[in-house]
């Protein structure tokens, strides 16, 4: 399956089915990250229940320093 992650195309392994798996598979600590799927904010608790499909647009957002 191929999705768009933060604007770039990305091939997912076949064992990644839902949003939670997708986020967990990323390197780095993804705690505190918020997810937009196709422009819609996804609540933390709903990630597991959302199955991904080809062409999905995922945005992963986090807090950072700013003025």
């Amino acid at each position, binding site marked *: 399956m191929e999705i768009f*992650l*933060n*604007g770039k195309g990305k091939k997912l392994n076949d064992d990644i089915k839902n949003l939670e798996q997708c986020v967990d598979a*990323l*390197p*780095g*600590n*993804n*705690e*505190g*990250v*918020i997810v*937009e799927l196709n422009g819609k*904010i996804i*609540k*933390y608790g709903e990630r597991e229940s959302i199955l991904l499909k080809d062409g999905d647009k995922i*945005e*992963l*957002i*986090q*807090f*950072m*320093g*700013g*003025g």
Partner: protein
Amino acid sequence: MDIDSPFEIGGHKLKNRFFLGTGKFKSKKEMTECIRSAEIEVVTVSMRRVDVEEHSENILHFIPEETILMVNTSGARNAEEAVRIARLAREAAGVKWIKIEVIDDSKYLLPHNEETVKAVRILADEGFVVLPYMYPDLYAAREMEKAGAAAIMPLGSLIGSGEGLKAKRFIEILIEESSLPIIVDAGIGVPSQAAEAMEMGASAVLANTAVALAEDPKIATMAFSMAVRAGRMAYLGNMSKALGSASPSSPLTGFLFEK
């Protein structure tokens, strides 16, 4: 005269009138020390895309729990984008305070008042505590107020410029005319400029670059906090009246060596 009289924003009574931005710090630990040592009550953070190739710590872990988190909408070029960022922040961490920052000019980074007002209206309706960063225009300030802003944050001068209060004459007018707290934001490079803003009657001052890039950010935070407090005292005590003519501080009459 109560020099510690707090001011209220979004139901919070604030005593510390120096707000700190969290960008550009050399380390998150240093940032935490600045917040703690000066007992900063309000900090700003921004949001961005995760860098998926690299581990990055969650900045919120470095901000003391009692500190009010104000998320800015930095990066937004119009009201819609600002609203989207605000909602993300709420979902991600229950954030209620939003500094609306809409910039559609990559050279001077000036705030776009008209788009900002729109975002204020939407987000205030959704229950956010909304503080618009704005260009100091009296009519826009009125619109911000009508739209539900909790305070207004006019720029002193260009972001990151350190030029101080280039918009002084116009901020004075906002202070006189608006019933909202005025928080001077942007362009404050040294403590004397922060003190000057407070002497005019601003409710608070926000700085970031001048602190984060200082040789010793902790000392810079203290310096700004003290200057803000000093300026506040001067305002409360009506000290700001230049006489413009000479007047002796020692008695010159009846003195010693009359001829």
